[in-house]
């Protein structure tokens, strides 16, 4: 697979015009992580609605096209879902969103950063809720 296949129109579009980019005024979950290799950074904020639904979700950060586009696509996918849905989210789901590019072992970390941040935030929140 060539570079032009990885950097499809779709990924470039989400990189330059990221959906759900920004911060929420009110949120119940806030999670942050970085990819030390690239210096990619992703923050995700979630407002949890009735029945533990992801009512609002936004992300912000900086980094390569793959990390930023995948985080943006993930927020679109997550909106309206149950928090428990996040648990079954897997690597394949993210790669499908990106159009199944053939990413090498180092670049796949860029693609999965958003999922890692989402999972960390939601698991932390659910853990706290369980203790309550």
């Amino acid at each position, binding site marked *: 697979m060539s*570079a032009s296949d*990885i*950097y499809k129109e779709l990924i470039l579009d989400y990189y*330059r015009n990221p959906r759900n980019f920004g911060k929420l005024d009110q949120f119940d979950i806030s999670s942050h992580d970085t990819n030390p290799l690239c*210096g990619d950074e992703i923050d995700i904020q979630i407002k949890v609605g009735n029945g533990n639904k992801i009512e609002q979700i936004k992300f912000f950060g900086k980094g*390569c096209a793959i990390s930023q586009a995948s985080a943006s696509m993930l927020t679109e996918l997550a909106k309206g879902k149950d928090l428990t849905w996040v648990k079954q989210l897997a690597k394949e789901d993210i790669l499908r969103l990106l159009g199944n590019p053939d990413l090498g072992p180092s670049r796949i970390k860029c693609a999965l950063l958003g999922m890692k941040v989402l999972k960390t935030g939601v698991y932390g929140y659910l853990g706290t809720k369980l203790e309550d």
Partner: protein
Amino acid sequence: MLKAETLDVERIRQDFPILQRKVHGQRLVYLDNAATSQKPKQVIDTLVDYYSRYNSNVHRTVYTLGEEATEAYESSRKRVARFVGAAPRELVFVRGTTEASNLVRFAWGEKSVKSGDTIVTTIMEHHSNIVPWQLLAKQKGAKLKFVGMLPDGTLDMAQFEEVLKESPRLVAVTHCSNVLGTINDVTRICSKAKKAGATTFVDGAQAVPHMPVDVSTIGCDFYAFSGHKMLGPTGIGALAGRKELLSEMEPFQGGGEMIREVFLDHSTWNDVPHKFEAGTVNIADTIGLGAAVDYLTTLGMARVRNHELGLLKYAMETLSKVKGFQHYGPQDMALKGGVVSFNLADIHPHDLATILDEEGVAIRSGHQCAQPLMGWLDVAATCRASFYVYNSYDDIDALCAGLEKARSIFKI
């Protein structure tokens, strides 16, 4: 005219087996020399020869193999020391620059730095010349001060003078920035630091491979460099230190080789530099580093520098014509090593490096182990092309062609 090379690059390239390989079907264009250099067959053969013919431990055997290994190991010390203007007994072999700064942190810093002392470094440093001092400062309750930079990517000498008024215990500075290529006037810095009573540590990892270096002229107390960036194997480097300091210092690691006598309740130490070379040393790679130094000596370091300067000028001229190219670092080539850090429009360095890789062009992308410097540049990451003796003008043309392809993929 501009293309006149000062080294016979075609002939040099024949010595590097790796340059024959293809990457993604393309000729390998290796432009990540500031990270690590490739190895000539003269160095590779030395390693094979040692393991095939006289592998044995050094400094403790009386049989033929051991004597040959010891002779080769100590001969390497003499040549490496001469290469940087140090005396052989002032040259300690270490794993690399990082181990050298950590050696100084423990063997010198433990005894010499006290609570309330000031340690000075700069924001252009590699992490290996920041983190050991952070750890030392934290342990001792000392202050760590950073000298900043001027907009042209050179050190703010006025600020340096200011911080010297605090009579720092240590001034740790890089000879050449791994990101910007800035060559610091370390002779002047060390002279001023010395007058203020400070001990000086110079990180020479990006200088020794690329230009003539003479530590006695620089007048520093410690000077560190890595073998793998100068055609040598990984896992070997050196710390050149002033004899008086090395003699007074405590050992770094305890074990075999570094002792004179061991009793149950105490031990006495071997002479410098062996006091700092505990355990079985890295014999093969040390001998390999000797071969690397021989290779560079034959080329001549002044010619190596001239060659890189030619590449640098050509690169700056051609790359600045690529739309969206933004360069970081000094514009004055006389103050700059063969390193070009840049970004291309809104393309993230890792995306650019992936695209270039498909063209066979290897560059570094990321924070370059210098996050404080990235903060100063106000970027998360940069791309870096860095040159060495086997790079040609064709390599820079290949880089330019790769950048144009990236522009087209990213629709710029």
